[in-house]
């Protein structure tokens, strides 16, 4: 069995029929991590108990106990998700030594489905960034060309998946952090509808925007993984209680008659030519497959980026207040507690523990929530957010899925763009509105730049319509010319 090409289902079936052991599969990926990770810096912690976990799966199989649909499939987990007994840092110095006594619900659901955890994946600090360059644990590199960024914030997940250091990975997406790195690294990534996946145990960046999702090699794997992690969680009262469809068995590449929306406001010539080409090709292919392309208008999407930064920074400023050197994590080195003022204790710990980008956003968010500014900023952004969300709801009455690029350009070089925050932020124009409106969004590889860097295509669906998005992605994947290409580091 070629573990580099096998699907989740194939591996799980093989493990359950004892054609291959979970231990063998896990060993295979652990050795890839050992060999290839030094070039990529995708994993920032390896689970020393991974083989024990695999062993436990094999023993269950031996005893004919049920092991779940992902039996023996090894995953890498973004370091935003808490893993019991395994260091979880959110890519930050302030959590450099934090060992959670609990699993995030996504992680425990994966374990219940039979997954073994290989380790934790690099990311931008607290998921604030789109290049993985804000990580306290160093840059992660793009496996297609290590001079380039893998994207972010789930850069480690995308790089690990593209280089097949894991069979599957989990990322989180607050403003594009699954879809953008998936696009940059040529893998499949889906951000579920807000409320579809539990946020319990996922380190909060912006609570009304965050969702976790699979970053994997195929649409089918994405569907299988989604089934395992979606659904109501009594530990997260913002999860929906509605039934989770059987995404993988409903998967269909038949898009005949499906209405594909094209957003009028996106056609403003801001795109890199290779991105433009990929996007046009995708539209062309869908038409050939019988889909109907219609133009839709979401005027307020123009304001998505500033709205997003305001809301995300505001929520983050509050979410990150708990990192104060009292209960866990980093505490500034004080010679003598007794002579310390409480304010200095906090300010030193937080000043030293957070990186520059995180501090910048805490500052922005604190300001936007503060007295005298709240109405003009946070409240105003929330109002416009409702109006924009309603425009999307309206648009989804006339189309099934919106097709768009993921980013304006393919991956950029390390250090190329991080100097100016505003330019960096504007990179997110195609992804942030999905989170603001709570929609589901997906990136599927569909093109290749002249520099041999992957380019994804984005599909956006109405609330709880992951199936439609998956189906269109499945159709595109089938006709994609790049699906068999593999990165340089492989």
């Amino acid at each position, binding site marked *: 069995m070629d573990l580099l090409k096998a699907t989740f289902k194939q591996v799980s079936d093989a493990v359950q029929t004892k054609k291959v052991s979970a231990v063998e599969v896990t060993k295979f990926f652990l050795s890839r991590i050992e060999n290839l990770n030094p070039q990529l810096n995708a994993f920032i912690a390896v689970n020393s108990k991974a083989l024990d976990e695999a062993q436990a799966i094999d023993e269950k199989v031996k005893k004919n106990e049920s092991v779940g649909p992902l039996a023996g499939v090894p995953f890498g987990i973004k370091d*935003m*998700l*808490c893993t019991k007994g395994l260091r*979880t840092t*959110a890519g930050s110095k302030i*959590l450099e030594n*934090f060992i*959670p*006594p*609990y699993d*995030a619900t996504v992680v425990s659901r994966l374990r219940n489905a039979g997954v073994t955890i290989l380790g934790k994946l690099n990311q931008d600090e607290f998921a604030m960034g789109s290049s993985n360059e804000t990580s306290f644990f160093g840059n992660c590199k793009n496996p297609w060309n290590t001079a380039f960024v893998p994207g972010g914030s789930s850069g480690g997940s995308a790089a690990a998946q593209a280089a097949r250091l894991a069979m599957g990975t989990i990322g989180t997406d607050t403003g594009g952090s699954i879809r953008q790195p998936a696009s940059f690294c040529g893998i499949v990534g889906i951000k579920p509808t807000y409320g579809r996946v539990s*946020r*319990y*145990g*996922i*380190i*909060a960046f*912006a*609570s*009304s925007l965050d969702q976790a999702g699979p970053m994997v090699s195929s649409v089918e794997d994405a569907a299988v993984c989604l089934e395992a992690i979606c659904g109501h969680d*009594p*530990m*997260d*009262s*913002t999860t929906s209680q509605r039934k989770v469809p059987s995404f993988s068995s409903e998967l269909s590449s038949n898009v005949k008659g499906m209405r594909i929306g094209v957003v009028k406001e996106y056609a403003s010539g801001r795109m890199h030519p290779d991105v433009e080409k990929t996007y046009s090709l995708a539209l062309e292919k869908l038409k050939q497959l019988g889909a109907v392309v219609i133009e839709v208008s979401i005027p307020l999407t123009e304001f998505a980026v500033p709205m997003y930064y305001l809301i995300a920074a*505001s*929520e983050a*400023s*509050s979410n*990150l*207040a*708990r990192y*104060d050197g*009292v*209960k*866990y994590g980093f505490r500034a080195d004080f010679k003598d*507690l*007794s002579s310390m003022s*409480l*304010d200095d204790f*906090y300010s030193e710990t937080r000043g030293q523990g957070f990186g520059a980008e995180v501090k910048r956003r805490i500052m922005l968010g*604190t300001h936007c*929530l*503060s*007295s005298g500014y*709240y109405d003009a900023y*946070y409240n105003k952004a929330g109002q416009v957010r409702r109006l924009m969300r309603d425009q999307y709801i309206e648009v989804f009455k006339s189309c099934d899925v919106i097709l768009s690029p993921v980013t304006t350009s393919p991956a950029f070089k390390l250090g190329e763009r991080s100097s100016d925050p505003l330019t960096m932020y504007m990179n997110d124009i195609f992804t942030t509105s999905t989170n603001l409106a709570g929609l589901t969004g997906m990136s599927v590889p569909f093109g290749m730049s002249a520099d041999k860097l992957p380019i994804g295509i984005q599909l956006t669906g109405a609330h709880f319509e992951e199936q439609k998005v998956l189906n269109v992605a499945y159709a595109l994947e089938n006709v994609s010319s790049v699906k068999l290409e593999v990165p340089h580091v492989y």
Partner: protein
Amino acid sequence: MSTSRRGFEAVIGIEVHVQLKTNSKIFCADATVFDAADNENTSPVSVGMPGTLPVLNSAVISFGIKAGLALDCKIRQRSVFSRKNYFYPDLPKGYQISQYDLPLCENGKVKFFVDGIEKNVSITRAHLEEDAGKSIHQGDFTLLNYNRAGIPLLEIVSGPDMHTAQEAAEYGRTIRQIVRYLDICDGNLEEGSLRCDCNVSVRKVGAEKLGTKVELKNLNSFRFVEKAIEYEIERQIDEIESGKKIVQETRLYDPDKNRTFNMRAKENAEDYRYFPDPDLLPLIISDAQIETIKKSLPELPLARSTRFQKKLGLSELDAAMLTAEKEIADYFEAAGAICGNYKAAANWVMGDLLRELNSKKIQISKSPISPTALGKLILLIDKEIISGKIAKTVFMGMWETGALPDAIVQKSGLAQVSNAGDVEKMVDSVLAANASQVAEYRAGKTKVLGFLVGAIMKLSKGQANPDIVNEILKTKLDSKPE
């Protein structure tokens, strides 16, 4: 009653923090018991660990609605939990989850009596929030225990409607009484399960503008509420009269010195950056939910006291005393229902029963004498099976053994002797033994009658029916000697 003092009028508003006595915390499944070991009642949620989320406890909602209805509030059918952001080590998340601009309960009122005069105080709002942890100060450092972090609180905010320390204390007692009637809080000020913060300001009589208010904290009894406010009013008037300005601050009360002292100046920079907590959806309450709770509300103390006066014929004072605690009122009504003699039941409960309970520090719910037993005891008296005096003996027997009164009376032969023949024998024997007193009586010194009755009662060990004793004795004395 005039509320002015030295030409000033005090204005007092009170925030009462009521710890709701749920099994688990407001947002997670930690226990809420008071005397747990250090940090034993904690979990990742209450310690504010990364990624953890609050999930609202359903009992907190119903307790909040109950209180709101009892305080005559409007129940908001869509209320919102916000985050109050500030840094303090007892606050594990760096913010407190609290209802802010859209609280569960609003616009209520509460009525009580101060020296027999009716007083109405408006309730501005009552909202749900989480308690903070506990700081243990050790001089060179501080230690944190988060057992209390996340215990549900209902903060009841009054209007600035009170003008004397006495009114404020009575308001506090009334709130305590109500939440105890509703069985949503144990009302223990010393343990902090009910905490009163009093906002006090003074202004010249007739002035419209409110003076600068000072917040008083650390008041762990209603007596201290009264004394602290007394002191604070005088202090503020002194300050103003000596030409100084009142500073907006928080002051603590020191009961030993009977004075208040500054804890911290309220910084103008205090900016809590409230915003709706995205981890919690708005709390939606249906009409049906409110109706169901409304129907389940117990009769509240004031209504019950009024009924005790009007229907059961109790005095205002007795009714107030018996309704002070729901358990006492319940006990009284149960005992009264057994014997039908509410007056007697009231006297027994307020007298012998509460005296014994208080001296042994036993709660009425744990009384060795059940209300049924007490009712039966009263029945024995009313049926003249025992005398009032014997009843005291029987009562103590019941207290010590837990036995029913009939059993004690029977076992110890304490039943009243009403048989005329038996009584006559005793009368005869006393008359025979006290010939000189008999002679005195017959000579017109009728005062000795009391002595003779006493001697007969003593002979009967108190069991002779006094009416029959009197009747036979008088007949014998008044008839000519043979």
